[in-house]
């Protein structure tokens, strides 16, 4: 009887998930307080929790600054990646002309661009944005390109027979809508990579605010490890929220016609 009730309860949505999270936090607390006993090595969850209250004024500004860097980089990455991807996917010559250059640039780790970001752009928001851009642009470009290459010939033919002959119209009315799921996937992957680059990009003091800047340049040198962890968790949560919002918007609005087949 009781066993059945317990099982029923566990089967409810989210129950096991919440329990496992709580257990993990509990174990973390125990280990920090009773085993490590040094908050410079492993701060306890309750210390981290308290850190959020102490940082109450700073957090919004840091988040906004980081989101600004992120938006600059992702925006530029989307514009450049989608444009080049479309050109290369549609025009064979554009592909042949650009492919070699891109294949050479693509494997360079985005953080290796930091010196030039600073030299070219200076210690500005845009320099951090530039690093995010380098991280985000290639996944967007490659996915857009793939989408354009895979446009079904039948759709092109069908459009032509219905009087859609100009290339610009074929791109606008057939290739772009067909490629939207690919482009969406590219942007999602680009968002992930860009976010990872963001923290490191802010390490170089491009601004007095920013999650990465605060974490790496202030809290870490001062050995405020509880605050470091607080910001780590914040970085993760924001990325999660961004991804969910993007997915909700794209899957529910833009890609209704594909329903559940896109970007799991």
């Amino acid at each position, binding site marked *: 009887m009781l066993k059945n009730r317990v099982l029923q309860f566990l089967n409810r949505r989210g129950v096991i998930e919440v329990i496992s999270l709580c257990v993990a936090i509990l174990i973390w607390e125990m280990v920090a307080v009773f085993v490590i006993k040094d908050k410079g090595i492993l701060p306890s969850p309750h210390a981290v929790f308290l850190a959020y209250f102490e940082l109450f004024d700073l957090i919004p500004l840091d988040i906004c600054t980081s989101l600004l860097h992120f938006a600059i980089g992702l925006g530029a990455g989307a514009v450049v990646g989608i444009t080049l991807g479309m050109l290369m996917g549609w025009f064979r010559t554009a592909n042949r002309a650009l492919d070699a250059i891109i294949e050479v640039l693509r494997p360079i780790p985005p953080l290796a661009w930091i010196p030039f970001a600073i030299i070219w752009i200076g210690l500005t928001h845009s320099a951090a944005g530039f690093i995010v851009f380098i991280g985000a642009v290639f996944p967007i470009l490659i996915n857009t390109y793939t989408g354009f290459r895979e446009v079904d010939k039948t*759709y092109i*033919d*069908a*459009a032509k*027979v*219905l*009087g859609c002959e100009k290339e610009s119209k074929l791109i606008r*009315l057939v290739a772009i809508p067909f490629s939207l799921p690919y482009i969406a996937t590219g942007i999602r992957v680009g968002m992930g990579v860009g976010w990872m680059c963001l923290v490191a990009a802010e390490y170089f003091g491009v601004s007095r605010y920013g999650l990465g800047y605060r974490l790496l340049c202030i809290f870490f040198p001062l050995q405020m490890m509880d605050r470091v962890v607080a910001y780590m968790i914040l970085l993760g949560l924001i990325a999660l929220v961004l991804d969910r919002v993007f997915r909700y918007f794209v899957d529910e609005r833009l890609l209704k*016609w594909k329903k559940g087949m896109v970007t799991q």
Partner: protein
Amino acid sequence: MNHKLEIRDVTKTFETEEGELMALDRFNVGVKPSEFLCIIGPSGCGKSTLLRLIAGLDEPSSGTIILDGKELKGPSPDRGMVFQEYSLFPWRTVLKNVTFGLELRKMGKQERYRIAKECIELVGLKGFENMYPYELSGGMKQRVAIARAIAPEPSILLMDEPFGSVDAQTRNALQEELLEIWQRTKKTILFVTHSVDEAVYLADRVAVMTARPGNLIKCAGIDIPRPRKRTSVEANEFREKLLMWLSLERSKVQD
């Protein structure tokens, strides 16, 4: 000179890795206005190639195609086409698929929707306007494809094995509906099939093609009065004849 469409000495060769491949060899056929012509032949004999040439999606290597007394150049909305594969735009609803050709003509929205709705009703899909293609069965998809093809009012409809991938019952229903649409709109229809039954049920005239390189071996009128019965004696006799022509052709290939 009372032909709606005339195909004169059309040859089509493709460049492939194994050299030149001749799909059509000096093909000739004429289609009269409002005629329902079926083209039947073994698969790979160049039926789709022929329709693509007429649609203007490809150019003949030599020869001419004349529509309404004028030589063809490129695709245009005076020829509608229904493809062998499902070709509905999956990102558009049924209604928006049907309006596609009308949008390209800079027609007002109201007008577009009115015509599209008429066409959708004509193929019996009233009420499905706002569905996406993934929500439709194979037969419904081809109905929408027909509606989309006739919405811009082409004078000739090219159909490439449109019912090839639907089940037998649905196919019978679709054939009847197509005949109804044809009788109502008086369009010239060029219908490709590899099914003898389909040709005998639908066509005014049937053109039998040889295996590659495609050519005509026979062109015969079917004067069974309409509405036809699929199992009537005349239908069976004609089916017999068609099968014989086709098998003659097959044995020739095997030699």
